[in-house]
């Protein structure tokens, strides 16, 4: 007896789960990597803590809106940047991994939809990131003395990070579309490359933006990371409601509201554009025979 393929809700969830299961299996395949990753995280935090201790005096003033503690500032910067980095890279790395392993054609033939494919390949990455975040936080809090404020609002911070992650997912879809638009199959693409340059320089991951020239601060204003990091630090580390980003001086709202509005705008714009671009890229791949390495 033959029948057309179909995926009900239960089968869709099973399909997502099988992606996650496979990713975790691959991740835990090389056991030594676990240990090296953890040592690496410890080393990175130790390095930033030393820098924080040396540089704390010179940036103390700029840290006031974020509670004043540089170690806590950096720990939060690193972990939130990791989460947003995962949102940015998930679609690209999922598509690339499927392409190079020759699985992309098989996935395109299966009844799973593109969102399920993106979600399936992303969840494993998020789980891995959250485990890394947990390790960073454990090291950060218990060894390097990072702490949140007594008035920290965790739920609101979560809201900001979810909206920022949605915006980054949109940008990530645009980045993944570059695989076919500009043949960016070599592990790097123009969109993530530009974003990562700005994130490293002007998003405020490692130092407060106010220490930079104003034009660089404006550069940081072009990406969602800046607003998410600013808001999450304000919510978790306490501090004052001082304007820290150039846009805070323009819009008539308090910094937290401004950040949320900008992040929502980013998400509303990037998600549909990214989605459309990604689907067009897949169509282009089918047109030019680029879904697999072999036609």
């Amino acid at each position, binding site marked *: 007896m033959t*029948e057309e393929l179909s995926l009900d809700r239960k089968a869709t969830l099973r399909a997502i789960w099988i992606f996650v299961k496979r990713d975790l299996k691959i991740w835990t395949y090389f056991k030594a990597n676990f240990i090296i990753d953890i040592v690496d995280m410890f080393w990175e935090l130790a390095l930033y803590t030393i820098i924080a201790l040396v540089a704390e005096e010179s940036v103390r003033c700029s840290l006031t809106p974020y509670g004043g503690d540089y170690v806590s500032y950096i720990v939060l910067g690193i972990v939130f940047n990791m989460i947003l980095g995962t949102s940015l890279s998930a679609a690209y790395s999922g598509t690339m991994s499927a392409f190079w392993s020759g699985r992309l054609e*098989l996935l395109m033939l299966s009844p799973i939809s593109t969102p399920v494919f993106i979600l399936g390949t992303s969840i494993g990455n998020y789980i891995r990131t959250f485990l890394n975040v947990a390790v960073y936080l454990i090291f950060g809090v218990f060894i390097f003395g990072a702490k949140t404020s007594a008035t920290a609002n965790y739920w609101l911070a979560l809201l900001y990070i979810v909206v920022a992650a949605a915006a980054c997912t949109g940008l990530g879809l645009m980045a993944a579309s570059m695989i076919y638009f500009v043949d960016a199959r070599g592990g790097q693409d123009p969109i993530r490359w530009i974003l990562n340059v700005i994130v490293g320089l002007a998003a405020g991951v490692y130092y407060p933006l106010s220490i930079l020239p104003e034009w660089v601060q404006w550069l940081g204003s072009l990406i969602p990371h800046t607003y998410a990091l600013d808001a999450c630090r304000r919510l978790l580390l306490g501090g004052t409601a001082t304007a820290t980003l150039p846009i805070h001086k323009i819009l008539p709202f308090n910094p937290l509201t401004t950040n949320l509005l900008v992040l929502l705008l980013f998400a509303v714009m990037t998600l549909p554009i990214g989605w459309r671009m990604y689907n067009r890229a897949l169509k282009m791949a089918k047109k030019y025979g680029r879904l697999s390495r072999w036609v």
Partner: protein
Amino acid sequence: MSDVAIKTFGLTKRFRKEKIPAGVLGRSHWLLSLTLKLKLRKAEEFTAVDHVNLEVKRGELFGLLGPNGAGKTTLIKCLSTLLIPDEGTAIINGYDLLEEPEKVKRSINFLGSGQWVGFDWALTVRENLEFFANLYGLSPKTAKERIAEALNIVGLKDRADEKPHRLSAGMRQKMLLAKGFLIRTPIFFMDEPTIGLDPVSAREIRRYIKEKLHDEMGETILLTTHYMQEAQQLCDRVAIMDRGKIVACGTPEDLIRGLKRKEILEVEAVNIGPELLDEVRRIDSVENVGSRIEDEVMASGVIRVHTYDVESALPKVLQAIDRRGGKVLHVSISEPNLEDVFIELTGRGLGE
């Protein structure tokens, strides 16, 4: 429901000839790739599938026979939505290929060739199959049953808990077949299903395709192959494809019956090369010549000579082989087969 499962209307697919190796283009930095791509914009095109009109009836086991590079794989990739055709369209299971690709996808199963395609090195054979069973929406119970059945059919039951990189090339092809046997859609595209298999396994797989999938389950199967015997043994009807075009279509018996020559001079020899074939072609009474190389190292294989005067042609053919440093192993007069249809239509053999 229409009794036609697949119907194509002038289906055409063209590709650009890229002079830069795909590996260089793909793995390089995006900026370099983009620059190279812009330079390639004026690259010439070649037509892989050229205005193909084909009709496959429901429940039919239909073969696409042709040499490597004939356009068979490109054609079934177009039909299975993996490639968008440049011209023409097709109706698959009642759905328009261009208008309703999602519905087409749900009606078809695609079995590609290539032993490493799509499997994860970190998962066992069984886990890899479970992965695909889940993607195709099989319930856990059905998946378990189908995986056990598929492993049994391809003879990988004992290797189910090993990782794919521990398997031989032939076994990885079997793993790919097992994946293909998990689902039961109305239409099944098979791209060279027995390539790389040992003769015993290939026979078993052919039997399963014919007896279970075709005869018992009534699946419509479109199978590509460059093995003449496979097409002749399995298929209800065959389309012969060459350089993107369908050059003949019909039942194997009708195609063979339509041949001008009913007796073919078959010479098994060593050291068969293009120069030798050209020389044989120049013999007066010879109309067409085709060859099939069976051992690449020794260049040994079979030359099939279509001639209206076997007695006159035979000594000249043997002399030509001798002159070119070849060695004759066996000579016979054989009945024509599908390969002879290809030779008569194209002037060369399937293996050339």
